[in-house]
């Protein structure tokens, strides 16, 4: 299931400066595991020790916050867009 993943600036040191990379997996969690294989160091930035999404990371699947879907188990289809966005932003 190849998908496109938008990579924010703080993570681009793992992707050689590239802002959009390809990855594959049946779920968001599987996509993160695949990202880790292709770009070692990514997983630790996204997931905590227990394998849960870090507090200050938001992941959007086709524009929807995965916390409104099935969290890290949200199903991923061919051609989906995943965006990783630092949570710290905003203020009315």
């Amino acid at each position, binding site marked *: 299931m190849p998908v496109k993943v*938008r990579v*924010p*600036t*703080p993570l681009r*040191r793992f992707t050689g400066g590239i*802002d959009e990379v390809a990855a594959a997996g049946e779920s968001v969690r599987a996509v993160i595991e695949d990202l880790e294989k292709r770009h070692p160091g990514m997983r630790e*930035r996204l997931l905590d020790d227990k394998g849960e999404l*870090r*507090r*200050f*990371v*938001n992941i*959007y699947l086709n*524009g929807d*916050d995965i*916390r*409104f879907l099935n969290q890290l188990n949200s199903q991923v289809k061919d051609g989906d867009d995943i*965006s990783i*966005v*630092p*949570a*710290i*932003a*905003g*203020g*009315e």
Partner: protein
Amino acid sequence: MSYVTNLKCRECGQEYPIKPLHVCEDCFGPLEVTYDYAKIRAAVSRATIAARPHNLWRYRELLPVDGEPEAGPFSGFTPLLHARRLGAELGLKKLYIKDDTVNHPTLSYKDRVVSVAITKARDFGFTTVSCASTGNLATAVAAHAARAGLRSVIFMPEGVESGKIVGSSIYGARVITIRGNYDDVNRLCSEIADKYGWAFVNINLRPYYTEGAKTFGFEVAEQLGWKLPNHIVLPTAGGTILPKVAKAFKEFKEVGLVHGGEFKIHCAQAAGAAPVIHALHKNTDLITPVKPDTIAKSIAIGNPADGFYVLRAVRESGGWGEMATDPEIIDAIKLLARTEGIFAEPAGGTTLAVALKLIAAGRIKADESVVVSITGNGYKTLEAVANSIEAPLVIEARLKDFDAIYESLGDGKRSLQGAA
């Protein structure tokens, strides 16, 4: 002279230089400005501050700026009113309203944070400033950018009040409304900031922007005679102001401007956008985002960036929080208007409605001092209450027509008390 040390990650402690950065590269935690408090303690006194102009820069040693700031020369130092009539209705002798409905120039607390952000945007050499906003921030960025000679591009969710669209565009800002809610706007703007390198005041300038919110707390303490209140009630949307007011009170103690004094800080949210209150009441740190649905559009944020820090500040202080429904918000707006002559936007109605609940629950006691924080102006959100007011009587310009309705107006005493 600058008293700023650097930027530091609130989570892992990693340090960064003073640049337009907001996220820790190691753990994605928020970056915060740190100061040399020993140096500040030696440099400031109540007398030096009291002698300065009545604007937010009177606390400049505790703000992340160097030299003479140009933005916001009349921003901040809004009234702290001793609310005697409202207090009498609620059985409180020491009830105060911190009234940012009259902040200069755009009538909300956002004039504080934007004064700092625009100053930093110029320092960093940006020519375009931008923001994701529910409206009040939009008008503040547009106005302050105009005066600073910067271009502004403003992003808001569709459906915000017309006063906020007109009140941004009038300054020459380019307004873009997004089909979605604030959280959608915020996500898009994070991606735009990352791609185009504009100065988003509440994204890549966020560590500086949020520091401006401390001035709300500094003023409360100074205006109470260099004392902290027993209680302060603040609205929470993205979660900027509440932790920063807690920080302000702690900093005033740290640098010796107030001596002691424990305060409880309480959080107010609209029931239709209350992810922080849900977490508080469930006694968890985990904030589950919601899809906002409330007339309090300025605080209609379902995924608050700093919600975690709001919870922490409330719990550390021994405070609490409640939520208010739309009808409760409207009732509170009317109560504040008819008792104190202050017209708050729905965020202010939310804050007062929650204060009423805290008083009723015995969390705020009759002999304690309490500050209710009114952060935005009702003239910008007329739609919210337009259907909840008594419609005007319409008559011909003839005395006998007035005679016919005179009795229905009641005597002076009755009209003074009005309809509750």
